[in-house]
Structure formats: C-alpha cells, structure tokens
C-alpha cells in the first residue's frame, strides 16, 4: 500500500490542470437539456476536449484516448471537476456504450462508432426503459424484426436521457418474438433522425427536458447496428464491463468538487452557522472523501487483476444517498433564501433535485440493496 502520488502522477495532474485552466469556458455553458443551443455548446466542448485528447484518457490512442490507467483517470477527473469544466453531454456514449462497444463490438463497429463518439460528432442517448419496464428492465416489448440485412424496429422507449437533442440511441429489442423476459433480446444502435422515429420531450422536475419518449414505428437499421450476437443483448448489457460501467457512472471528483463548494459556502458564513448545520456540511464532505477513497481502492484492486461485482451496487447506494445529504446541507446553509432559484442558490437547488433522482436511476436503491444482499451477502432470493 502506497497512498501517495508518484512524481509522474503529479506531473500528469499539473498537465491536466494547465490545460483546463487554458480551455474551460469562463462562463458556465447553458444547460444541454434546456435548449438546442446549450446542447451544441456542450458538443463543441466535447470536440475541444477531444482535440486535446482529454475525451477519455483511459481509451486506447486508436480511438482518441491516451491509454492511461485508472488512477490517472481519477486524477484527471479531480482536476476536471475542480476546474469547473462542463458536464459531459455524451456520458451515455463514453461511459455506458463505449466500454460495451470496446468489449463486444467487432473491429468494424469500433472503427465506425468510437472515434465519432470521442470527437463528439455523435452524441448518444440511452433507451433502456419502456412504459411497463422501469426497475424491471427485462420486461422489454419493443421488437427488432430481422428483414434480410436489416432490422425493423418498433416499440416505445421512455426516460431516454439526452434523447431530445442526441444523434443516436442504444437499447434492447426483442429479436425473438416468442421469447420472454431476458431471453431473445438484442442490443441495437439506431440513429434518432430516421423516418419512423418520433421523440417526445418529457419535462422534468427542474423544468428542463433531459428525457424523451421515443416511439419507433417500423424503423429500418442495418444488422450491422446490432452489438454482440442476436439474442445476447441482456447478457451483454448486464455483464459488468469492468470499471467504466461499474464505477465511472458517478465520478468521485464530482462530489469532492461539490463538497468543496459546500465547505466554502459554510466557511463564508462564519460563526453564524448553527452547529447542526455545520455538522451536516462536514459529514457530507467526509462522505465525499470516503466515496473517493473507496473508488481509489477499487481502482487499485482492478489494476492488480481484481474484478468489480456487486461492489458497484454498494457504492451506488452510498453516493446516491450522500449526494442528497450534501445538497440538502447547502439548502440548510441558505436558510430562508434556500427556495430562491437564482444565482448560487439555483445551482444548489438544481443539484438537490437532480440528487433526489440518484436513488432511482441506474437501478433503484431498492434493487441495489437486493443485489448487495443476495450477491455479496448470500441471502436467499425471495
């Protein structure tokens, strides 16, 4: 165990810091979920990142990355969030689909999709849920009917993040009409501007449209767009595709940066802060550190040849609940002005509302607790 950075790691940090200082937009970009302009501003930022080869530092150089290890990814993220750099509009692509493509895609698929993803030329939406399939992801009804070299897609997807403005989406389709539950599903990628694709924005709790419904009516895509073998979609999606799928979903650096802003807000208010509020602030900051330490430890184990299993459920429960406490502590600090959706307060309010979704998305915390209980602790199903 050596819990200090090497000179090379320090140099890397300095390089990231310098680049960010030179490139991060001075003013925050408009939200990518609120308008096309905001979306395109974030796409431009993805391009800028990609030009600096900072899009995905862990990806191979051939796909626009730097082939770096996970510790450096953590260092990169720390500097990225500390610099106040924009949220990643292409996170569905680079964190969710990218690693799966890397593991299960053909050479031709990788060449087709990964570089365009890295350069922000194609921004991805996810299309996991259907109206009757929320936590029960296997209750897929959307169909992919084979027709020569193509599939014809039909069905109804919902809660597709980024789908209002994104270029492409990926989702599970029932390619075997006689199958049930998680059998006979295929993972298919499809452009969102094809004939037969209708997108209906869903207005969220914060008034923005980060989600959409996608209705597919006989949409024709080449079989090339199927990732992995036909009928293997469930296995491919559920297999933990290493660190990225399991742990990159919420970068610890994002919470550490939020904790730093929270501490600063508390420190600025000085001695007037009630002790209970101060304690909540400090607890939240410690929790953010705990999550970061857990991820450093997991990254170290992975680099030493370990694997990540139900551990990802464990950390997901922790960060999602911590995030709510962290944002709520800020609202306590803001006191009778906490409801103001303006200025600094607005960021905390938005963060709080978004945090409240944390225990729901990416598998509800109820499902995650079942997973921890059954797969880590060995309790019986039931």
């Amino acid at each position, binding site marked *: 165990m050596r819990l200090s950075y090497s000179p090379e790691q320090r140099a890397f940090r300095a390089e990231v810091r310098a680049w960010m200082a030179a490139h991060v937009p001075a003013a925050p970009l408009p939200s990518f979920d609120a308008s096309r302009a905001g979306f395109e501003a974030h796409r431009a930022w993805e391009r800028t990142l990609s030009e600096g080869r900072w899009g995905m530092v862990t990806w191979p150089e051939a796909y626009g990355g730097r082939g770096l290890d996970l510790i450096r990814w953590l260092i990169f993220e720390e500097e990225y969030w500390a610099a106040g750099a924009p949220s990643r509009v292409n996170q569905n692509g680079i964190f969710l689909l990218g690693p799966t493509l890397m593991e299960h895609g053909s050479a031709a698929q990788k060449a087709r999709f990964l570089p365009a993803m890295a350069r922000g030329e194609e921004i991805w939406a996810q299309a996991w849920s259907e109206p009757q399939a929320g936590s029960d992801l296997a209750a897929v009804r959307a169909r992919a009917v084979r027709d020569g070299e193509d599939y014809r897609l039909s069905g109804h997807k919902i809660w597709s993040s980024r789908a209002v403005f994104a270029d492409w989406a990926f989702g599970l389709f029932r390619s075997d009409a006689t199958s049930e539950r998680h059998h006979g599903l295929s993972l298919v990628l499809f452009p969102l501007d094809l004939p037969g694709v209708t997108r209906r924005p869903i207005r969220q*709790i914060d008034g923005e449209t980060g989600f959409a419904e996608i209705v597919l009516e006989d949409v024709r895509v080449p079989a090339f767009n199927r990732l992995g073998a036909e009928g293997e979609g469930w296995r491919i999606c559920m297999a933990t595709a290493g660190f990225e799928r399991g742990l990159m979903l919420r970068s610890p650096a994002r919470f550490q940066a939020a904790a730093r802003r929270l501490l600063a807000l508390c420190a600025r208010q000085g001695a007037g802060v*009630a002790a209970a509020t101060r304690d909540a602030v400090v607890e939240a900051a410690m929790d953010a550190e705990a999550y970061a330490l857990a991820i450093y430890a997991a990254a170290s184990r992975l680099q030493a040849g370990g694997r990540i299993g139900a551990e990802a459920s464990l950390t997901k429960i922790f960060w999602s609940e911590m995030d*709510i406490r962290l944002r709520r502590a800020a609202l306590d600090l803001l006191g*009778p002005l906490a*409801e*103001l959706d*303006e200025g600094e307060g607005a960021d905390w309010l938005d963060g709080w509302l978004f945090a409240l979704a944390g225990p729901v998305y990416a598998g509800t915390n*109820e499902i995650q607790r079942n997973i921890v209980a059954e797969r880590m602790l060995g309790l019986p199903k039931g």
Partner: protein
Amino acid sequence: MDFTLSEEARAMATAVADLLADHCPSKALRALLARGESFDAGRWARLVAMGLPGALLPEAVGGLGLAGTAFAPIAEACGAALLPEPLVETAWVTLPLLVEAGAGEFVARVLAGEATVAIVHPLAPLALAARQAAAIVLVEEDRILLAPAATARLTPRRSIDPFRDLALVAAGAGTATLAAGAAARAMAGRAAARGALAAAAQMLGLGRRALDLAVAFARTREQFGRPIGSYQAVKHHLASAAVAIELARPVVHAAAALAPGAGPATAARIAHAKLAAGRAAEGAARAAIQVHGAMGHSWEVDVHLILKRTLALATTWGTAADLRATAAAHLLAALPGPAALFPEESADG
C-alpha cells in the same frame, strides 16, 4: 381536556376541502401555470366569500372567530391542495398582525375582498404574492410598516416553487408606521410564531398529499408482475412516512391551541410543530419521489410541486436550526414537569 376536533370545526374543514377539490384540482393549477400566473382571483373570491381570510379574527372586527385548532385542519387542506393563493399566511399571520396594530380599516377591505395584503418579516424576507397586493406589511427590527403597493418598489425573485411569486420590497411614499419599539418587537415575535404555525399546518397537508399520491401509484404500478406496493421495501418507506405524519399532527394541533407569543413553552411547542411537520412532509415527499421512480422526476406528476412547496415552507418562518435552538432554550431551562405537556402560559406572559 378534549383532544378531538369539534363538530363545527370538522364541518368547516370539510367545506374548505370540498371547495378546494372543486376549485383547486391539479388541472386548475396546471392551467394557472400555463398562463404564467400564480394567483387566481376567482378562487380567492370564493375563499373570501367563505370568510376564510378573517377566519382567526374576532367576530367583532368581521372575522369568523375560529380557534387556532379549528383553523389548523383548514390550513392542512390548503397545503394538501397546493393552494397558490396566500390564504393561510393572510389569515394566520398578516391580518391578526394588522388587527393588533390597529389597521382595522385596511383589514376590512381585505375581508371584503377589495384588497389583498402581503408581508415581509426577517424570517420570511421575501413577500409572497405582493404583485396582487394593495399593501405590504413590513416587519422590521424595531418597527412595523404598512407600505402601499402603488409606491413600493418590488424586485421579483424566482422561487423553485412556480406558484410562489416572491419579491423584495422597498417601501415608498405613503408608508405608515403601525408600531415601533417594544410593542413592534412583541408583535413581530407573535407574527413569527403564527408564521411557523401556518407553515407547519400546511406542511402536514403536503405530507399527507404526497403519501396519498404514492400509495395510489404503488397500488397500481406493476413491476416484475406485481404491484410495487406489495414489495416490503415500498411498504416500509410509506409506513415510515405515515408514522412521521401521524405523530406530527397532534403536535401541530397542540401548538395551534396556544396563544402565539404567550411564553417560552408556547414558543418551544410551536417550534416543535414546525420541525416535526417539516420533517414529515419532506420525508413523505422524498418517499413519494422514490416510489414513483422515473415518473417522480417528471413535471407532469404533482409530487415535485409538493416537494418544492415543502422546501419553501420548511426554510421560511424559521429554519430547522432556529427552531431547535428555540426548543432547546426552553426545554433545558424549564425541565418540564409531569403536568407541563399542555402549557398554560398567559397570553401576555
């Protein structure tokens, strides 16, 4: 000793709930929002016609003379209905203050439905619905002013609750000083206690509404082939929310029975009521969001409106830290004895 609501009070609360069911359903709220408004004059007129803005005023000045305990269920109903108009604040805080301060003429105009009035207080520093108001009561450190809206400068501020039309207020010409010095400070203290009660009772209703929505959803929404409400995790979330709400209600009712400003035991009980109701409402709103899953984060389901109103009410008229300090000051000094559950402080104590 009788801790049940009188027939009359129950009937009154039912009448208000019925009126709100007809005139403040979710659809009406959505329509108001779509018009970019947050005050429905027609609905306000109906509330005025029932005499509700003067519910807590003595009959001698044109009020209904209701006790706080009788008004609490009405305020709860207003909270549950997400009523946008500031009826509860007007009835429980602003008009009693104006009556105390001798502004009877202006009170009469409000009771007649000719005017509305907003309030600014150190614990609620932004006026609610001041744009409609004919005047704004400004409770300051050492004096209480009545500022005509015509000359006041209003700077709009945006609340997370789309129905809370907030503004910073700067008084202009024609502003009258209603009270100053010790009298003003005492009135300000009573107004703070009334504001906390008003918020507490509304939050009880918000919590109940959140729970009702979540229960209705959990009974019908199916996952893995059965209603999600049949899963123990969902049941236990909602049962915990019910515990918090049902154990907060007697505290709110007991607090509403007291004369605001009567003394430290009263102040502690009112603080307790707002703390308990706030925690219950926020917990229920969060449970409802969790149970609704992705639907809970969509604009079209009312749960987020409940959550936002609750946040606004929880942080104005005394933050949790303020309230805990108030309760601590009394409890640690008095070490309340076995007969102290129902404080009997004189209204001047």
